[in-house]
């Protein structure tokens, strides 16, 4: 009888100790997750944002109207290092600049062709009747200077590659 009582007492004590140990482990696990999870989550959100946002590259380059595959395009002379950042099909905003760098006309087109020569200058063709029409309206013949803004690369890529040197603006 006495032995049974002692055993039941020991079992009760053991259960209590186990329960306490489990509570301590749970609490510790909670504290550790509190320390790590929100921060990892915040970093992941940050990376996600920069993955989806694409950076606008602005190139100030000579532009002229040319023919490519039987259609009229706006052809820009672009340095080869800038051309690497641009992809076919990317939307482009074009502003034709006047003698004092004032904006004469502005329109929107799509990158339809790129001539990667590996040497400067390379050529970038922007198609779209709207933008050609606008250029025609200000009577641009031969060549003029234009500001071409193309939204292409992921912000994350730009951040990882960007260091101390000059940014993407070329002039």
């Amino acid at each position, binding site marked *: 009888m006495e032995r049974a009582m002692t055993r039941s007492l020991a079992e009760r004590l053991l259960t209590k100790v186990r329960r306490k140990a489990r509570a301590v482990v749970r609490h*510790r696990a909670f*504290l*550790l997750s*509190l*320390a*790590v999870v*929100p*921060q*990892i989550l*915040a*970093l992941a*959100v*940050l990376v996600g*944002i*920069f993955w989806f*946002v*694409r*950076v*606008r*590259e*602005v190139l100030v380059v000579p532009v002229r109207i040319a023919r490519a595959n039987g259609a009229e395009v706006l052809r820009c002379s672009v340095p080869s290092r800038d051309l690497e950042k641009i992809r076919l099909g990317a939307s482009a905003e074009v502003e034709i600049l006047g003698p004092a760098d004032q904006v004469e006309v502005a329109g929107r087109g799509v990158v339809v062709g790129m001539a990667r020569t590996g040497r400067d200058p390379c050529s970038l063709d922007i198609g779209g009747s709207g933008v050609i029409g606008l250029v025609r309206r200000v009577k641009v013949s031969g060549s003029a200077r234009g500001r071409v*803004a193309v*939204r292409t690369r992921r*912000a994350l890529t*730009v*951040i990882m590659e*960007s*260091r*101390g*040197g*000059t*940014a*993407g*603006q070329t002039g």
Partner: protein
Amino acid sequence: MNELRSHLSRYAPLRRYFLRYLDLQLAMLVCSLLSGFGGVLSPYITKLTFDYAYANRDLHLLIALAVAGLLMMVFSTVGGAVQQYLQLHASQRLTYAMRADFLRHLYRLPLSYFQSRTTGEHLYRLGSDIPGAAGFIGGFVGAVINPFLSALYPLAAVLWMDWRFALVAMTVVPVFVLQSRYFGRRQRDLARETAAEQQRIASEATNRIAQVKLVKAFGRERREIREYLSNQIKLIRLSFRSYWLNLQSGTTSNLVNAVVQGGVGLYLGCRVIRGDMTVGTLIALSMYFVQLIGAARGLANLYQGILSQLVPVDRMLDVLEMEGEVQDRPGARHPGSLDGVIALQEIQFGYLPDRPVLNGLSLTILPGTMVAIVGASGGGKTTILNLLLRLYEPDRGTVSVGGWDVRDLKLAPLRQQIGVVLQETHLFSDTVRANIIYGDPEATDEEVIASAKLADAHEFITALPLGYDSVVGEDGCHLSMGQRQRIGIARALIKRPRLLLLDEATASLGSTAEVRILDALRPKNGERTLIVVTHRLSAIRDADRIFVLDDGRIAEQGSHHELLALDGLYRRLWDQQFGSQEVAPSVGDS
């Protein structure tokens, strides 16, 4: 190297505290790693805002960067809050555990330790040193690694962005380090001096205010106030010294800052004008440079900081390293019932080296008898009781009970059977009942009353407004000395001790009350052995045996009449007190 090893080995006992919350410390480290990453991203986000969002009029990117900046802020706020919580969690629990261990050890220390230190010192160690030590151990990983991390992040960023600027920064950062070290040491020394002075003043004030009765009795109130205020003036002077030092440090720091930041700004500006750097990069590098200076200052003071944080740790270890009181020997036996012969043989003992109190003393006490120890002040009467209680170990000779050397007996059950009442009865600021049952927390009300009756205390206790539930005040200040002694006797009796030691325990009672109480306590059926130390010889006339102490030895022993007949020291003491009378006159309680 050996010196460093021995220095570090001192802190080895703290390893268990360190390891107990290692997981939390690692979590704190991860937290600061991630927060540090957040901190290093902020200048870079500023650079991107200037170089890409503003320069290219990119609204999408600007919004993304604004969200990123906001996230970074939330990120570092949450990280900081979690880190603080973890630190608090670890340090509070460590404080709890360390205080428990410290108190356990403190109670094991010999009385000589307490006699050589003030109460204020112990309270300071418990109240300030232990939380300081716990904070240091609980946040050790962070305290040591964080300064390196906060230097490493901006340095890596600067190296990645512009290695030439990194070289420039590395050459000017030592200027800040030197400035910080120069003033840091002086400020720390001054802070230590101030803390020591504050502790001394607080300890002194506590002592003086506790003895307010004495101060009033001697009319020293004005002197005490003057001394306290003159101490305050010392503190005020220290505050002014600290102010001047801070002013010098701040001014030189601002000056160095202006010169160096101006130079760095000029260098970076020239590069922007030359076109080999963007404005965003200039801003980011300037921000990293400021971070780098802060981190370098932190690193410069790291070693000194650790040293000053080790001060409370050392103070705690000073106590923990002290040898505890007499401990149970391996294989120590339970003393059983203390009903054997008590013998002290050839005892040699002194509280200070070369100043023996007992010098080859031997005596034998038969169980179930009442014995008295008398003699001149400082003759070693109380020392005999201290040795019986094993509060001290004899330098030579043995104390034995029932033929067993007390050093071979377990201490706790030995003391459990000994009741002791001292001349200065200390009571807790609690009820009469709580003070009596301190001797046996399991005692019933009936036992409390029975003990109080035996100690001749029941009558005055029931006359108190709340009887046994009356609060006695600080150290029993609401009661007379005689009443305090009666409660002290009741407290000892409730233990039902086999050996009762009364050390001048009835000195504040009237002689009639003293005789009445001693008569009540006298062993009737051998239920206890009673040892009485007293100056008042009238109280011990009926003792079975009286030991007369002189020069650390037993000079005479025998019954009252035998000793009078001897016409020796006892006779002289008796005559000094009562002349040739056989019965002493009655005196009331004090």
